[in-house]
């Protein structure tokens, strides 16, 4: 099992009163099988991002254990490539230098670096932006560069924190298709955090729904659909509806952030569609 999350708990001390500890995760356990794309879906504040950053090693856990390829991990490492929500591309490096950065750290030869860089840039159609600086790129381009940087060293494990959260709707759909194509070519074990039901169904082999009760796992749904996924397939919508129902329960009417609003809108839209579809038949 590439990723095993074994009964992890995490609490933070409150900012105003250090003595009060806020429990975020309590006894959370799940596994990500080899070559499987798993999504963590849930409302804001359910601890899905905390779980992911603990797996990445950016944060400590209070108890429990994370096993990556059988080894317990406590610190970040190149065995787990990470895609950040706000890209975290280094602004003082050019696009090409950002993508070759992990290759340099892995002591890849200069010639191999160039070859791999050309390959990756072509994959994301960014050949003309090799020497651009990050601030010159659009949001979608930045996201693609961030993804290429994560893929640079052919990682076995990919962790993604709302990778498409900051780009607009059109770009999101396009990047989903590109992402699926890339991941289909080479099965990379992937764990993605998202609050977007459609994205979860489109990309995942399995979706884990987390609730607000200390990150308790409400459901573990296997998406058994052929790839590439077809959005007009009725089974696709059945999965989306199932997850929407689960999310609705997890949200329980408590809307805290923009993220929750997105979920609420999605639920409302899907209910509206269901009613509209019903009357047409």
């Amino acid at each position, binding site marked *: 099992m590439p990723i095993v999350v074994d009964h992890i708990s995490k609490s933070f001390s409150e900012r105003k009163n250090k003595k009060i500890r806020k429990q975020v995760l309590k006894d959370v356990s799940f596994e990500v099988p080899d070559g499987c794309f798993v999504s963590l879906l849930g409302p804001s504040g359910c601890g899905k991002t905390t779980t992911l950053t603990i797996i990445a090693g950016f944060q400590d856990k209070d108890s429990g254990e994370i096993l990556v390829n059988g080894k317990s991990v406590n610190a970040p490492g*190149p065995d787990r490539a990470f895609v950040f929500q706000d890209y975290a591309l*280094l602004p003082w490096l050019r696009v090409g230098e950002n993508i070759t*950065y992990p290759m340099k*750290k892995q002591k890849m030869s200069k010639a191999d670096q160039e070859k791999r860089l050309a390959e990756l840039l072509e994959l994301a159609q960014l050949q003309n932006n090799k020497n651009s600086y990050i601030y010159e790129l659009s949001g979608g381009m930045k996201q693609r560069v961030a993804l290429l940087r994560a893929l640079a060293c052919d990682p076995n494990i990919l962790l993604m924190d709302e990778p498409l959260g900051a780009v607009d709707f059109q770009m999101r759909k396009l990047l989903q298709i590109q992402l699926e194509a890339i991941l289909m070519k080479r099965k990379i074990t992937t764990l993605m955090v998202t609050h977007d039901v459609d994205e979860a169904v489109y990309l995942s082999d399995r979706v884990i729904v987390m609730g607000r009760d200390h990150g308790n796992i409400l459901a573990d749904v296997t998406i058994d659909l052929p790839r590439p996924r077809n959005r007009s397939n009725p089974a696709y919508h059945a999965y989306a509806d199932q997850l929407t129902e689960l999310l609705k329960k997890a949200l329980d009417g408590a809307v805290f952030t923009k993220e929750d609003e997105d979920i609420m809108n999605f639920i409302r839209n899907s209910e509206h569609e269901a009613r509209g579809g019903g009357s047409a038949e």
Partner: protein
Amino acid sequence: MKTAPNSHLKSLSQSSQTQRNASKFVKKFNLPALILLAIVCIGWFLGAHLYKKPFVFPYFEEVIGSIAYALSDLAVLRAIGITVRRVLLGTFYGVLIGVPIGMAMGFSTTIMNALAPYVNALRQIPTTAWVPMAIIWFGLGDGPTLFVLALHGVFIVILNTAAGVLEINKEYYNAVRSMGANTLEVITDVVLPGSLPGIITGIRLALGMGWMTVV
């Protein structure tokens, strides 16, 4: 006078040419500031001649004459050279000491907590108060001047460097660590380039303050 039929066109293009030159000139020499300088000079000239008490309000032309005379004097030029050297050298020492300390303070909360009270207390001491101590420690000559300049610069550089490091997006550290960078590489690849704007601001301010302290 006979003019060619397209002469007005030519003059038009010429005027746009002069306009472009003018805007270039403004950019290069900061024309508004030059105009203001000219107005002040003319005002001074006229005012002094109307007031007619050169001991209280010297004539403009006499002041300019004295400056020209001083600049032609080798001793004055050498003194200016010494002053410039002192400011640059003193600030250089300040930067040399201040940048590593500032970086350490920005990078580690422990070091920040350990040093911040002393840095903040010491930097409140007026420059002139250091002078007697500096003379006792370094004797007369360049020593005390350089010491005071470096001391003055060091705090400005520390504060700006630390602020520069603190401003770096925390995700950058996670990002390079997850790509396999060790602590040294985190410093060379993130802390140094990321805090460069802060360091440069610190050096500029330290140089500016150096001119004020050097007297």
